[in-house]
């Protein structure tokens, strides 16, 4: 770019050269004309060309132009169509024009033949709008001419500014129309006379006519678009006194949201009513579907204030809470009634504030009729930008039935659990392989430990001789049959053997297949013992009655035999040989008499004497009778006497007979075994009884159950009548006591126990009175 040759900067008026004389009022006249032209001009380029032409004429210029800055480009509006400038000079000029200048600048055109005057055109706000440029033969500009240039520039500025503003207005107006037309909603504007002033393109397109064609038509012609049943000439106006209206109208299968604005003009004619019809058909459909879903869904739905006031509820919720209608429920703040306690309501509010959303929140609510409703709710909170909860929305399920079912189930489960846990029987569940999968509390109370039971075979607890029975019963049950009251011996938790009654029941799965076996085990050891004792004493009583009867019947003939034998022996006429035979009869009769008397002793029901007896003393006296025999045969006697034993009431002689019998029995058993004999005699107080135990280490007893039966003897013939222990039994029973026998567990020998009722104070007093009579 070449630097233009500068002739003078600033005002050339300072050069002092004389300008050709021109009357200044002529300029004024022309400037006035220019101003009028500017005011009438609507199209800027034309005006600017005319302006350049006038400026060239006024200043004797060869050529003039206004260089307008349009964006980042310069547009030359020249007065003459033909430019005197060569292309290169024209380029130079455009180049020069890009440079800013504060005021008038006069340059020499390259080539030196001409001068160029450049004057910036500024808008009121100081913006550079363009440059006035004038080409003249080399004649200096007079100060008057310079002033004129300045005035012309100002005129140009005013005009340009005015035209620019106008065109800007035109543009924005056009833009606004385009914008309005771009809106898909229907827009119709009418005046006070109900005439259409404007419509937008989408409305015109809908009607199939150009927008301009509608202008001036009555607004009622748009009635078919949507109907509001308004009595007014405008189908969309409802109340003309309102500045704004908004409502929904339908027409031709569409639904519109009609928004109306009314502008009050300076005059009646200028007042406008603007209707915007928004097609909300799809939205309405979506809303309708939503509402349908909202109302038909089985779950309760609600919108509520954070305080719990319902804003909207669906039918299901109304039904759930027992209200007549949604209005009924929405009418008043029901939350006070709804929540059984204020605390429950608070709890919910706090939970929402804390978590924002609640999943499966369980709450018991009160229905309108006061009945309780168990609900499960999913609640979410809607918050404002500050985070405050402004609304809560929720879904509510009626879980009353489930809850009731659940609690009933729970009750049943508890009930069953209680039964299982409080029953005195051990209840176990086995799988079909016999492994224990469940044991009730009783099992653990009985001392079994979980790790000993669960996962183990129950049969392992059964005594080996009974295991086959148990396995067979298990098989039977696995095939679907119940087994009741199987009695067998099994190990207790303390390893002792117990007598158990066992019932097995099959448990079936859904497919009716036996998949488990329920075992109910009851320790009937005590019951079995009691029963055995009962059976034994019953048996003994029966034997006693029999014996008593027999003895009585035998005694009569025996009395005659003995009596007549005596009489014969008294008779001196009886020969000596017969006398010897009679002696044998007498002897055998005596022996029979003794047997019968022993039998009667066994059957005797009451002791002949009832006086206080010190059992320890009786024992010591009895031992004295046998001490020689015992010591000479190496039988050791260990006395463990409790001296605080207390007395019993009875016949000391008879009790001595009992003890002697038991000792003899023990002695015989020891002799038979060949052991180093030992008899331990222990007395003690056992509750209300005085108890004597004889523990020997002899051969033991073959059948302890039958040892007291009359004539039950294991001794060799002739060694005893077999009534000794029966007599003991009879005597002890007659004393109100009991006598027991068993073989020592894990040891040799047997134990005999005699229990006699300890004498009470009153019994002692009664006995003393009896004795003193």
């Amino acid at each position, binding site marked *: 770019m070449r630097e233009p040759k500068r002739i003078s900067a600033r005002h050339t008026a300072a050069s002092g050269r004389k300008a050709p004389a021109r009357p200044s009022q002529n300029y004024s006249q022309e400037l006035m004309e220019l101003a009028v032209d500017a005011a009438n001009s609507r199209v800027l380029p034309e005006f600017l060309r005319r302006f350049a032409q006038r400026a060239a004429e006024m200043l004797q210029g060869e050529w003039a132009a206004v260089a307008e800055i349009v964006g980042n480009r310069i547009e030359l509006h020249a007065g003459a169509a033909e430019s005197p400038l060569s292309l290169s000079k024209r380029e130079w000029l455009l180049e020069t024009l890009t440079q800013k200048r504060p005021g008038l600048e006069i340059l020499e055109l390259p080539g030196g033949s001409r001068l160029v005057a450049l004057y910036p055109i500024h808008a009121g706000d100081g913006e550079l709008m363009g440059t006035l440029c004038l080409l003249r033969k080399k004649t200096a500009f007079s100060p008057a001419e310079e002033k004129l240039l300045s005035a012309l520039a100002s005129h140009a500025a005013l005009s340009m500014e005015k035209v620019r503003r106008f065109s800007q207005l035109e543009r924005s107006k056009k833009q606004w129309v385009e914008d309005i037309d771009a809106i898909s909603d229907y827009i119709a504007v009418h005046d006070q006379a109900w005439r259409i002033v404007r419509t937008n393109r989408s409305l015109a397109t809908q009607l199939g006519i150009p927008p301009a064609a509608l202008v001036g038509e009555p607004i009622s012609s748009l009635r078919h678009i949507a109907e509001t049943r308004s009595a007014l000439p405008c189908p969309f106006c409802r109340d003309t006194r309102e500045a704004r209206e908004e409502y929904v109208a339908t027409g031709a299968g569409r639904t519109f949201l009609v928004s109306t604005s009314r502008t009050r003009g300076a005059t009646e004619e200028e007042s406008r009513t603007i209707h915007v019809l928004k097609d909300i058909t799809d939205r309405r459909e979506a809303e309708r579907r939503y509402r349908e879903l909202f109302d038909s869904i089985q779950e309760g739905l609600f919108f509520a204030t954070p305080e719990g006031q319902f804003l909207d509820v669906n039918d299901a919720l109304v039904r759930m809470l027992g209200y007549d209608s949604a209005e009924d429920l929405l009418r008043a703040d029901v939350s006070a009634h709804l929540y059984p306690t204020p605390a429950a309501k608070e709890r919910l509010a706090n939970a929402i504030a804390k978590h924002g959303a609640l999943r499966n929140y369980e709450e018991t609510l009160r229905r309108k009729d006061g009945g309780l409703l168990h609900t499960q709710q999913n609640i979410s909170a809607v918050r404002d930008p500050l985070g405050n909860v402004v609304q809560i929305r929720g879904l509510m399920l009626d879980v009353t039935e489930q809850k009731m079912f659940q609690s009933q189930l729970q009750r049943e489960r508890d009930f069953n659990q209680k039964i299982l846990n409080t029953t005195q029987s051990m209840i176990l569940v086995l799988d079909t392989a016999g492994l224990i999968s469940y044991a009730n509390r009783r099992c653990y109370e009985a001392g079994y430990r979980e790790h000993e039971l669960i996962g183990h075979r129950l049969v392992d607890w059964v005594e080996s001789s009974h295991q086959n029975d148990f396995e067979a019963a298990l098989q039977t049950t696995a095939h679907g049959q119940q087994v009741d009251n199987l009695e067998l011996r099994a190990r207790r938790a303390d390893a002792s053997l117990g007598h158990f009654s066992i019932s097995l029941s099959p448990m079936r799965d859904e497919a009716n297949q036996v998949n488990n076996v329920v075992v109910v085990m009851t320790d009937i050891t005590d019951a079995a013992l009691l029963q055995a004792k009962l059976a034994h004493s019953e048996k003994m009583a029966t034997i006693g009655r029999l014996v*008593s009867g027999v*003895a*009585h019947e035998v*005694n*009569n*003939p*025996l*009395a*005659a*035999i*003995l*009596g*007549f034998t*005596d*009489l014969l022996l*008294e008779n001196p006429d009886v020969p000596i040989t017969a006398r010897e035979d009679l002696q044998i009869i007498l002897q055998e*009769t005596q022996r029979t*008499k003794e047997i019968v008397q022993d039998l*009667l*002793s066994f*059957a*005797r*029901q*009451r002791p*002949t004497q009832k006086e206080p007896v010190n059992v320890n003393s009786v024992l010591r006296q009895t031992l004295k009778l046998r001490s020689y025999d015992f010591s000479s045969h190496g039988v050791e006697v260990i006395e463990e006497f409790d001296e605080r034993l207390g007395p019993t009431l009875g016949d000391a002689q008879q009790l001595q007979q009992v003890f002697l019998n038991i000792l003899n029995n023990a002695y015989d058993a020891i002799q038979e075994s060949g052991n180093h004999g030992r008899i331990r005699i222990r007395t003690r107080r056992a509750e209300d009884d005085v108890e004597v135990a004889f523990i020997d280490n002899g051969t033991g007893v073959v059948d302890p159950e039958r040892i007291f039966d009359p004539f039950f003897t294991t001794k060799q013939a002739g060694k005893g009548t077999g009534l000794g222990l029966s007599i003991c039994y009879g005597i002890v029973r007659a004393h109100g006591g009991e006598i027991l026998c068993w073989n020592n567990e894990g040891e040799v020998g047997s134990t005999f126990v005699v229990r006699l009722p300890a004498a009470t104070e009153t019994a002692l007093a009664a006995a003393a009175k009896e004795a003193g009579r």
Partner: protein
Amino acid sequence: MNATAIPRPAAAILVIEDEPSVSAFVTAALQRRGYAVVEASSGAAGIDKLRSGAFAGVISDIRMPGDINGADVHAWISKNRPDLAARIILISGDTANSETQSLLASSPTPCLEKPFRVQQLISTVEKTFGKP
């Protein structure tokens, strides 16, 4: 020899016993010692005889069939023949019987337990009724 056939120098002993062999032995033993004996085979028959006759004493079995047993006879005598109340000897075949025991325990009446020897019978009779 029949006890009822010859006149009795003194009052007889009434033997009430249902068992004929026992009754026969007791009667024989007493008669050989010189006692007069009247037999009755039941409690009722014994009481019948007690109403009409005079007796030196009564020997009665305790357990007898029929409505009246030895205890009843004992009670009847205590009430109706107090003169004979101390002249009763009871015979028992069944001392294990509780009724027998309570009867014996309640009175000093001597009792012979079957089977008994002749000597036991005679010494008890002599002690209770005296010698013939």
